[in-house]
């Protein structure tokens, strides 16, 4: 298991294997068969499976979701992709009222085996309408499942599990993860929906992250090592179902919680994790839990405002230190060297 491939390649491989294994799987969405191929994640599929299973779409997000639902009700397994979550909210009605409810409201007679991929992201002046992180809007809807892979391994495994699941699954993929490689088995495998992953074991504090912020959480754990603090890092992977057991077990061990998200704080995913801690691990908590989120305003476009907008490992480490009654150094908040904060790395040169 030493082959490394990137996140987008893992997605593509997962799609390819599902399409190869099951003729009822098809992929659809704006630009799915185009030369960009959804940042590479659908590239080559149209050549292999043909235009009838790798479909471009008219610009009509709500209707394409309805079409996907209708086809899922009648035996197909659509994978619908939105290049940005900001477009996907045009389909809120179909997702929330229809996809999430047809199984329940017809008492199990219908099923909606649908995967909706939505890309979230940040940087390079995407600005207020192209870089939102709206996971909490979906996670609050019973009937939907919501996953957010962080590693290439999980991207492939969760995607395959989502495609094989008989429920509507929203999969939010962070654009800044696309270029990151990981060990990924060549064969098809599944990562169960609803299971968090302990990325790093530790005893002093639990850091709960998701998506790109799980990587920042790992870096925070590295920083904290330097302070003699052992942090446990949990990558949520699924928001719905939420893996309460893993989070609570960790909290019972560490007694401290820092939660971080790619989104704003209030009424967000961090709220639920903190509520869970308070409700079900109250006795174990040694200090007030804290969260590290975006400031509570839309994303400004200017690169000059990106540094303050996106919290990083240092901010997470600082939150831990404060919980332990230690004053964080100013150096923790310094932007990383070698790149501007509107790029994932210096090789990324826009426009998106």
């Amino acid at each position, binding site marked *: 298991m030493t082959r490394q491939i990137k996140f987008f390649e893992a997605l593509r491989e997962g799609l390819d294997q599902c399409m190869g294994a099951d003729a009822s799987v098809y992929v659809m969405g704006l630009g799915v068969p185009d030369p960009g191929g959804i940042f590479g994640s659908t590239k080559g599929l149209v050549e292999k499976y043909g235009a009838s299973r790798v479909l471009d779409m008219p610009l009509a997000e709500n*209707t394409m979701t*309805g079409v996907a639902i209708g086809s899922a009700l009648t035996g197909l397994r659509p994978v619908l992709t939105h290049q940005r979550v900001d477009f996907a909210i045009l389909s809120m009605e179909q997702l929330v009222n*229809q996809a999430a409810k047809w199984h329940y409201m017809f008492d199990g007679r219908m099923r909606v085996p649908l995967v909706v991929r939505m890309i979230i992201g940040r940087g390079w002046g995407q600005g207020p309408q192209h870089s939102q992180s709206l996971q909490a809007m979906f996670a609050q809807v019973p009937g939907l499942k919501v996953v957010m892979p962080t590693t290439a391994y999980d991207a492939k495994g969760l995607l395959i599990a989502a495609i094989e699941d008989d429920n509507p699954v929203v999969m939010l993929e962070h654009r800044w993860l696309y270029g990151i490689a990981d060990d990924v088995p060549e064969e098809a495998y599944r990562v169960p929906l609803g299971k968090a992953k302990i990325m790093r074991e530790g005893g002093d504090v639990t850091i709960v992250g998701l998506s790109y912020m799980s990587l920042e959480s790992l870096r925070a754990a590295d920083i904290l090592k330097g302070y003699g603090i052992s942090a446990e890092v949990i990558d949520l992977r699924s928001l719905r179902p939420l893996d309460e057991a893993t989070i609570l077990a960790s909290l019972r061990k560490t007694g401290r919680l820092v939660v971080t998200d790619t989104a704003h704080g209030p009424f967000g995913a961090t709220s639920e994790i903190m509520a869970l801690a308070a409700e079900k691990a109250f006795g174990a908590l040694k200090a007030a839990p804290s969260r590290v989120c975006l400031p509570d305003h839309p994303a400004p476009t200017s690169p000059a405002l990106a540094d303050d907008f996106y919290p990083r490992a240092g901010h997470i480490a600082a939150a831990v230190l404060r919980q332990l009654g230690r004053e964080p150094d100013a150096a923790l908040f310094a932007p990383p060297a070698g790149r501007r904060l509107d790029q994932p790395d210096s090789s990324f040169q826009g426009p998106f």
Partner: protein
Amino acid sequence: MMDATTRKALYRAMSRIRTVEERIADLYPEQEMRCPVHLCIGQEAAEAGTGLALDRRDYALSGHRSHGHYLAKGGDLKGMMAEIYGKATGCAGGKGGSMHLVDLDAGFLGAVPIVGSTIPIAVGTAFSSKMKGEDRVTMVFFGDGATEAGVFHESLNFAALHALPIVFVCENNLYSVYSPMGVRQPDGRSIAGIAAAHGVATQTGDGNDAEAVFTLASKAVDAARRGQGPVFIELSTYRWREHCGPNFDNHIGYRTEAEYEEWRQRDPLALYRARLIADGAATGAELAAIDAELAAEMEDAVTFAKSSPFPPRESAGQHIYAE
């Protein structure tokens, strides 16, 4: 002239819808049907004529006013009544109510009360049929109000683009709740014209004439089945009772008694009864026998519904997710 079997089937289908809906109106004040009901009395010809044009294996989907579509497609009456009574034996196990009818055996895939929302879903079922190479047609029912929703237009485009086997049926009954056409759509342009502009084959017809409806719907279904792409049908008709609930409401001011009376004169069922008798296709006694049989069927269904058990408490937590 249409063959006698078909004609009687049309009469029967209309009379069945009327019988069921009238009886629901009678019983509703008992407050045992505890969900909104949108009765389709007055629109039976549109529903019978289109529904009978479908095969059982074809798919149909509808919206809030779906009783007639469900019945004409062959949906099980007992399951519908039990559903409206909120019973475990209902077609959706009591989870749905009047606004969420379903009968998979009959190809009635579902109805939901968010106006317009089943239109793209129906396009998706038609897409499925095309992908799988089945010669199955989907028919989707909606009102004039639904044609104002973006998904309607998006759906026409998608269906035309992929030449999908779908028939869009718009029952234009002039109102969306209490709102007349004039406050919702510009004067002097037709809904059918919009569908035509999308490159969808279009037909318009008298929604109170069951035979006319059946004839054009059959052609539409046939064209869709033969791969000629989607067809849009606009049928003019009128709802007799209030938008939602069992009563008449012409006195509250959104429409006139005169308008109502005019449409009442065009009662699709009474006209067809008279026509069959005048043509010698059936005797009054024959038709009365059909009506009586339907009334008895409805009494059975009501008894079934009333005597069925409510869903058990634990059913509320079942089927949240498919296993």
